[in-house]
């Protein structure tokens, strides 16, 4: 099972936080971050990335389309 990661390009402020925490999963193009693949592993680290984004631009959803990150 995997989760899906989405980055809201309008909110993203290119802080580099996600690509810094998980460079194998997120990459920073010039002005925007994006997941390398929409599918991301079900790992604590992925939720950490969503929690840490200063712009709250990253959403993680599970197989049933339920939002699991950022955590409330």
């Amino acid at each position, binding site marked *: 099972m995997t989760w899906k990661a989405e980055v809201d390009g309008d*909110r993203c*402020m*290119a*802080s*580099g*936080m996600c*690509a*810094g*925490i998980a*460079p194998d999963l997120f990459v*920073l193009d*010039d*002005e925007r971050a994006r997941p390398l693949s929409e599918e991301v592993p079900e790992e604590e*680290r992925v939720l*950490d990335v969503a*929690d*840490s*984004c*200063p*712009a*709250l631009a990253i959403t993680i959803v599970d197989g049933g389309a339920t939002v699991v990150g*950022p*955590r409330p």
Partner: protein
Amino acid sequence: MTTAETTPLAYPFNHHDGLELSKAYEDARHHPGLLRVRMQYGEPAWLATRYADARLVLGDLRFSRAEALNRDTPRQGEGRTDGGILSMDPPDHTRLRTLVAKAFTVHQVEKLRPYVRELTHQLLDELEAAGPPADLVDRYALPIPVAVICRLLGVPEEDRPKFRVWSDAALSTSSLSAAEWERNREELRAYMARLVQEHREAPRDDIMTSLIDARDGGDRLSELELVDLCVAILVAGHETTATQIPNFVMVLLDHPGELRRLREEPELLKGAIEELMRFVPLGASASQARYATEDIEVGGTLVRAGEPVLVAVGSANRDALRFDEPGRLNVARPATKHLGFGHGVHHCLGASLARLELQEALGALVDRFPNLRLAGDVVWKDQMLVRGPRVMPVGW
């Protein structure tokens, strides 16, 4: 590619009395490769001055902050200013950062805007009642971020005179001996440890209480990490913003055309704050060297594994390869990804809060006092990591 050892240049380049960016940075940006520099204490280092190089070093995990703890890291003072969350790499850094990140997101912080606005108006009323000349630092720039961070973290605001001394010393560069610096840090830690104990006995709705829950309920951080994180939030949470408010006012008074434009077009305010963040080189010096964990080429220089690199964000923010007319303040400049809040995993935790405070503080001041001016001699901070007025008498 240049790898040859050359005699390091004496660093830092900037003077503490003023906000000028040393001409040496412009020369460095045109110089192929990285510069070799030496600070008063610690080993020599590479200095990155261009935007692309700065982003690479700050954003790439092959550069470590934690390694600085094992090294004679480049610094201005004898005392070591490293330790805490700024000296950690992922995954340790991520573990601590995620515990507090959610209190500082754009959405959480935006809820504070009415409170901050009210605070600015109240302080300006008091300033007006006291009459000119008034010290903008003591009566306005400092009380705003102090009140906000005290409320968020759970520190009594009336302790400001106490932690002001400690916080000043924590960010001082060379005025203290290593022993003095150490003693100061222990006093600040003891003060915070007492507050943590009080919060344990009587939990409240603040960041300190949520960190205590994470420690006592989830064992997600040690007691020392808890105390140091609170100290870091308190110090970083007010000193930089309190310094940038008068800095931004100084720069705007120096650019009357831009100030007039901002007053006439208040919708430019948010962009103007970003432009001021880009334009004002807050740091007297690059600090917090990053250590290469493998050989990495940066801007034409091969940085060998184990070598430190200092990143001059003030210089990167004036890189002509990135910004049109970089030396010109333009409050209407289209959005830029400046590095004023850093970049990568150590990107300023409180950036959204700082933005909000700067927007409200500058907006209210510009709106209230159309004839704002200096009304006495500015006294500059001396030997601090951040540059800015210590005393700034203004009239209106």
